[in-house]
């Protein structure tokens, strides 16, 4: 797909048709839905399961849903969930081991087909990043590989940025450029509710041909690009990405690390909601008779003391060092390891931080007193 083809247009009521076509193709369809006062990702059976007419208001340490005046299907941005929970699940059983020596390595269904609906541009980048880490290394993770193999990515551009979004400065949004099967831009006009559709792959082309569609006209294409330009303009938060890696490497010792640590509770929320944080630990579960043991992998956080524990104690016993480790990884060492930052600018870590620590602000503070503590870097 060249991506140069003229975008298509479908009516909003035909979104349901996309969903049922995906189901007919054998995909389990996951998408946004409202639960416990938040937009989360779960199985959606029809467009009715989507948060229709729902918007969100986010701030550092705050998240509220609101009712919108319109019937927008995607009138909110990202919530606490990300697609990593389906590709890199929070818990996985690795082994079942018996005291008689029998080792049963778990297996993952290699034929599973998942369709992700409403994937935001920043989340497409997050999936690309996870691919790099879990799929393209020396030892690809078989769980991720099996789950990632047949994923249909139905992306949705962000015509309204959230208060904590900074994807524009990270270069990952608000418009998806690649990595999707289909990409929609929601158009709410007096004359009707519709989606401008960009086709990214053959798979996407087949799917769109299963519902009524037509070529988009110039007005519609212009409206979509205007909306996205406006969205970019309205995005309040940003990170200066140029030179950021070197700035952080230069400031391994900086007073601001301790200042953040005074507020940081080391709860690990930021790493749980982060769409790219991939760290896991393994725990052992046994029965009371020690006949049977299971080894479970689960998400872990570098904010815990245990994370860096080696005999004698943790390497990073202060919260200051743990925050530094996390931020350095997201914005500096990740670049050296995997070629891009580990941050996509989704803003989840800001929203779900109970004390509202704001990565964009913290980076700014480090820049303000760049080099205040002299560190010998050879």
């Amino acid at each position, binding site marked *: 797909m060249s991506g140069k083809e003229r975008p298509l247009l479908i009516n909003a009521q035909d979104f349901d048709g996309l969903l049922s076509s995906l189901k007919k193709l054998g995909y389990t369809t996951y998408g946004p839905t409202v639960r416990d006062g938040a937009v989360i990702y779960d199985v959606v059976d029809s467009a009715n399961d989507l948060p229709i007419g729902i918007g969100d208001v986010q701030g550092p340490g705050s998240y509220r849903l609101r009712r919108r005046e319109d019937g927008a299907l995607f009138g909110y941005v990202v919530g606490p969930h990300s697609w990593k929970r389906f590709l890199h699940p929070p818990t996985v059983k690795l082994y079942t081991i018996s005291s008689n*020596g029998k080792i049963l390595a778990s297996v993952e269904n290699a034929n599973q087909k998942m369709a992700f609906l409403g994937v935001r541009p920043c989340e497409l980048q997050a999936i690309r990043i996870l691919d790099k880490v879990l799929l393209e290394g020396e030892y690809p993770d078989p769980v991720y590989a099996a789950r990632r193999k047949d994923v249909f990515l139905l992306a949705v551009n962000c015509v309204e940025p959230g208060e904590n979004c900074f994807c524009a400065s990270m270069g990952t949004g608000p418009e998806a450029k690649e990595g999707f099967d289909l990409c929609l831009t929601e158009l709410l006009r007096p004359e009707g509710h519709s989606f401008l559709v960009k086709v990214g792959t053959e798979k996407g082309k087949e799917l769109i041909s299963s519902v009524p569609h037509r070529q988009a006209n110039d007005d519609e294409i212009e409206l979509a690009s205007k909306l996205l330009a406006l969205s970019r303009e309205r995005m309040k938060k940003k990170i200066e990405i140029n030179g950021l890696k070197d700035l952080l490497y230069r400031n391994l010792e900086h007073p601001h690390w301790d200042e953040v640590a005074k507020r940081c509770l080391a709860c690990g929320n930021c790493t749980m909601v982060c769409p790219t944080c991939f760290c896991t630990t393994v725990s052992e579960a046994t029965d009371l008779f020690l006949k049977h043991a299971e080894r479970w992998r689960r998400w872990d956080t570098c904010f815990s003391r245990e994370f860096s524990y080696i*005999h004698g104690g943790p390497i990073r016993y202060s919260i200051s060092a743990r925050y530094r480790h996390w931020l350095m990884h997201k914005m500096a060492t990740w670049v050296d390891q995997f070629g891009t930052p580990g941050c996509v600018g989704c803003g989840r870590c800001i929203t779900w931080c109970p004390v509202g620590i704001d990565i964009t602000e913290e980076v700014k503070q480090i820049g303000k007193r760049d080099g205040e503590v002299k560190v010998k870097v050879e």
Partner: protein
Amino acid sequence: MISSGQARLVAREEAALKWMSVSRVVKETLDTYTIYLKPKAGERFSFKPGQFNMLYAFGVGEVPISISGDPEDRDNVAHTIRAVGAVTNSLTRLREGGRVGVRGPFGRGWPMEEAMGKDIVIVAGGIGLAPLRPVVYQLISKRQDYGKVFILYGARTPNDLLYKKELKSWKGRMDMDVLVTVDKGDETWKGNVGVVTMLFDYVKLDPDNTYAFVCGPEIMMRFTVINLKNKGLPDDKIFLSMERNMKCGIGICGHCQFGPYFVCKDGPVFRYTQVKNFFGRHEF
């Protein structure tokens, strides 16, 4: 049975958990044991000096332990283990016939090929001698491939010295210099007392022709590096074996991240130039 519609959770052979049985246990010190493991009948195990295995104690958990045996002995896989936590306590309680789960070998080892024809100085602190013992075995077996060999080894007390018999036999060899020191002697100790770096006073290194292999507590490695640099060794001829928490051993759990590296797959042995901006930095 794995059907075609299922994917194994273990993709590569060395990443699969397999059992080995304990063939011999040597008590090294009060809390440190060398456990020799026998691969399953018909299987042999090969590794490179400096690599490690993930060892699993049934019902307890898994820990990374460097391989401390002879790389040419493919039927006895040695690990020298200090009982410091739940898993290592459990592993050191095993006796002949006991079962250990093994994944590995993992990681990058010492630059044995690159250092061919050069002098080698091995500097070890405490249990840091374990990942270096395979180096010594290899140096002895291919002695003509290397120049002078120096072994500088420090432990806390005479009772904390590992491989005592072998140390004696290495000392008896005319083709290498073995110097040992302890932080605190006892009534029988007639050797050096002091930290390992004081042994540098007794050796004459050729800075243009020497590779240094260093393993021990980070503070010991820091001062060793300073001493090596003072002796004129260039940074790129100094190699360190790093230690970090590890859960997977294969670069996907994130625990052993150290600057832009994962210690498990990019290390545990690093060229000093790779890590010098982070090495020794507090809580990094």
